[in-house]
């Protein structure tokens, strides 16, 4: 399913994930699916990359070093020019049953809240494409 597209036309996805094996699986798959992939392993670095490079969509883990995902989301939404509206997919292994997470979901308005174990990578890619209005592969 390798899709080759010119660099400038590629949709950019920022994957924020501190677990290397998972980051690699996601990164490889999205690259193969024709995305331009940006990577970050902590929330603070991710925020810099996001505001600089303005990816089209962000995959966000919650438990992260330096700055956790929920704080990242809050700070991102404070940026009126870009961060306020960029779609964010929360991709985590935390169940959405904790107050803090519920609050962040309500306030941070993510596109999706996906629990990693419940999703195949293929479906995650589909969800991202769907959100970006891309034709299904």
């Amino acid at each position: 399913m390798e899709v080759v597209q010119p660099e400038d036309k590629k949709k950019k996805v920022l994957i924020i994930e501190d677990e290397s094996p998972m980051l690699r699986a996601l990164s490889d798959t999205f690259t193969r699916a024709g995305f331009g992939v940006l990577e970050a392993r902590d929330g603070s670095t991710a925020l810099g990359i996001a505001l600089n490079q303005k990816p089209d969509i962000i995959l966000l883990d919650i438990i992260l070093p330096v700055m956790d995902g929920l704080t990242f989301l809050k700070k991102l939404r404070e940026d009126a020019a870009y961060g306020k509206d960029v779609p964010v997919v929360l991709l985590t292994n935390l169940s959405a049953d904790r107050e803090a997470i519920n609050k962040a979901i309500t306030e941070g308005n993510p596109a999706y809240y996906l629990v990693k174990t419940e999703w195949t990578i293929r479906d995650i890619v589909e969800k991202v494409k769907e959100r970006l209005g891309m034709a299904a592969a």
Partner: protein
Amino acid sequence: MASLYRSIRNSLWNSRKQLLTWKYLVQIVVLAALYVLAARYGLRFDYAGGLTALVWAQTGIALAALILFGYRLWPAILIGSFLVSYFDRDLPLMVSVVTALGTTSARVIGVYFLRRLVEFRKSFESLRGAFGFIFWGAIVSTLISAAVAVVAQASAGVISIHDMWSAGLSWWLGDALGALIIAPLLLVIFKRRPLPKHIRPARIFEGILALIVFSLVCLLTFYDYFGFVSGPYARSFLIFPFLIWTTVRFGIEGAVVSSFLAATFSMGGTASGHGPFSVGLLDTSFVLLQIFMASTAGTALILAVSFAERRRAIREVFEQKNKDEALLESIGEGVIATDVSGDIVLYNKAAEDMLQIPRSEAMGRRFDSVLRLENEDGAMIRPLERPLSLALSAGKVFRSSTTTTPGYYYLRKDGSRFPIALTVSPIYMKDEVLGLVNEVIGVANVFRDITIDKETDQAKSEFVSIASHQLRTPLSTMKWHAEILLSGDAGAITGEQREYIAEIYRSTERMIKLLGDLLSVSRIEMGVFPIELATVDLVQTANETIRDLGALLNERGVKIETHYAADLPKTKTDKKSLRIVIQNLLTNSIKYSPAKSTVDLSIDEHEGRIRFTIADHGAGIPAEDQKNIFSKFFRAENARNLDTDGNGLGLYIVKSMLEHIGGTISFASTVGKGTTFYVSLPKSS
């Protein structure tokens, strides 16, 4: 009477054995001697010359001895009675023997019935005992002995038949008075009582004063001291106020001593020609005197015992009250009770400590001006909606615990708050005398600070969350990497390799499912499973759930047919729990259904509740397994063969979750035909 016979026989038998002891012989001799001496003293008052005394003290001695030391002392009575009859009254030998036998058996019979029927034990403890003593000891026993003695004397010609009645009456009156005045005195003297630890000097003073005053009153009443003249009878009433004083203040001891003093003084006075009874013929005077003594002694005895009974009852009530109060006071829970108008009538130490509102500021005031109750969000609960108000107005019982959401908080005096577990229940009083039947007379409000419990629950729930995250991370990594290999994106794989990798993928999925179920179970069991009640669109929820099962339906080639009743009411429940319930039940139905079959999902209203019906045409549950299917980790025999991946937690989770949202589940199943599950939910959980 058989038992009387037996007990007399036993006592005779026991006596026979004890005859051998010196101690026993001494007791017999001493008692017999006392008996004779008392009789001789009494005969000094035989002014009528009929060989009867005004008071036969030996009768009282005999009764008291049998009561205190047992039937075995009967020979002393026999000997004493014989000696008195034969030597002091000069009765013929046979008459003396019969009189002695009659007297002895009359005393034994009296004491037997007293013990047996009245359960009299050595002292006057109850009114029943006092009346019993008067009846069996002072009346029945003496009637028997007087009758035997008079009949014996008449048969022997000692007295004429003509005199039998009057002789019998004076004999009986003397005996009865002896029993009434002397026996209680002796019983009181010999009563075993704990030595008082401390007697107040005032009480000793009052005792001596009472003794002196009572004696003085007796002197002026019966010996015409201080210028009183003989007669009239009415003067004898003078001693009653003083008799009541000694009796009420000094109980049975005061009563028997006063009766004894009154008897002694009145006999002495009357004999020496003084007092209210020394009028007219001597015979008449003495009978009047005897009646006076009997009524004095009887009245004092009954009065003393009823006062003692009353005092004991009051003490018991007080002890119980003190005990209850001490219990409520030392209990760790805050206890606050109000009366029917909501005023605080009980406020214990724990409540004081927790609320930091002093008791003096709480007692007697309305509960809502003292207790400030808030909900989770810090909003005050309105007075009419407070559990205590509802308990008062509607008799409603209210309970909130550590898992109750939203929680309740009390405010301390300084305005800070603490979470509470609260139980509020109406106090009912059933009073048949006043005709109140189950009337609410107040409210009991019991609470406990659950700050620590809440923190513990929080910690537990964090632990479960973190643990689940930690376990899921490697699982999702395995799952994704296996998926990438299977997709061929990382290079072509052989058919055999594909099978192996697929097995890894499937096992990972199974592990993920098991982990999810275990987490649900532990959350439910720890009571940290969050329930959020909201209005739920049942049809939409069902359809969403079915959509999620698309992959499984395709894989198994099974169809779901839905049958939703029109106009289903909006239902207030926890959507997440409901989805898990439906999803688990549908998954089971699909997994155990043959290919190309259908599973029916219906939703309708049934008996005022919402009913979900999930029916399949699958394997069915064997009858012997049906009672266990909701048990943790249980799997039916055929289910294990059909689906090796199941973990036996699904139905347990379903049932537990339903319990949390007020639902119930039942089923009907036939092996080979299929299973139908019925889930019933309240319209508002």
